[in-house]
């Protein structure tokens, strides 16, 4: 396997590819944040459904609290 040349040009090439990688990773991190928020909301919906199955109307409960 040929070794990558470590002269002056190598720094610029590495920097350009690292920028691309960083952009991808930032995008994935932002999407992961959105996914965890979605999971939290789904969890809340599951809890509301469980309460409803147990005989409580979640919508009415909210009105009482308000």
């Amino acid at each position, binding site marked *: 396997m040929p070794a990558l*040349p470590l002269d002056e040009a190598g720094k*610029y090439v590495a920097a*350009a*590819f690292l*920028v*691309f990688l960083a952009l991808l990773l930032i995008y994935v991190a932002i999407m992961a944040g959105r996914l965890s928020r*979605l999971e939290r909301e*789904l969890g809340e919906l599951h809890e509301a459904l469980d309460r409803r199955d147990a005989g409580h109307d979640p*919508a009415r409960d*909210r009105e009482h609290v308000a």
Partner: protein
Amino acid sequence: MHGKGLRTLALLTALTLTAAYALVFFWTPNDADQGFVQKIFYLHVPMAIVALCGFVAGGIFGAMHLRTRDGRWDLRAYVAIHLSQILAVGVLVTGSIWAKGAWGHWWLWDEPMLVSFLIVFLLYATYQVLRFSIEDRERQARYASVFAVLAGAFVPINFAVVRMAESYVHPRTLGTTTGGMPGEMMLTFLIALAGMALLFVTLWKYEMASKNAVAEVRALRLRLLGDDDALPRRTAAPTL
């Protein structure tokens, strides 16, 4: 449901991009003029082409929204433009790094290719601002679609005009004036372009699936809880 075929697409993207960059570093010869620094070309140019095509696709989706009044087209346009903006940031930064390595300058203001791309980028930077400034969802989607169509039409016109302009420093990649590229370079470039296009489509599908899932959870929340929190706050992003 919305992410149908996403896994296959993601695998195909990973394979194509890995193959392309393996060819870049282990098979494609160094450029006679620029040497090793020219390897940035296989990243920078496909990214620029895909970003510009994404802007045009946003315009087409915007036109479909204006024609059908279906909010899903507005969402498709929003996601395409949003991803193209991210790629455009990459184009500007990698281009600047390449310019420094090849020409000794981070930026050249008298180079039409660079300045025109910056103009396109700044034009699309106003897209989110325009959306956020309009509270009414219907109007927001309509005005954003008009913007997407007009700006999308500007992109190829701008590109054609710049290519016709006299070149100072920036090379014309696919032109014949410089004699074109050798076979290995062209093949590697085409694979890198295919990989970048696949990456764009994969991320577009991924974000569409994510936004559709959020919309469905909100609709369920509204139905189940009658919850005001389920209604989206004022945002630049379209809501279904």
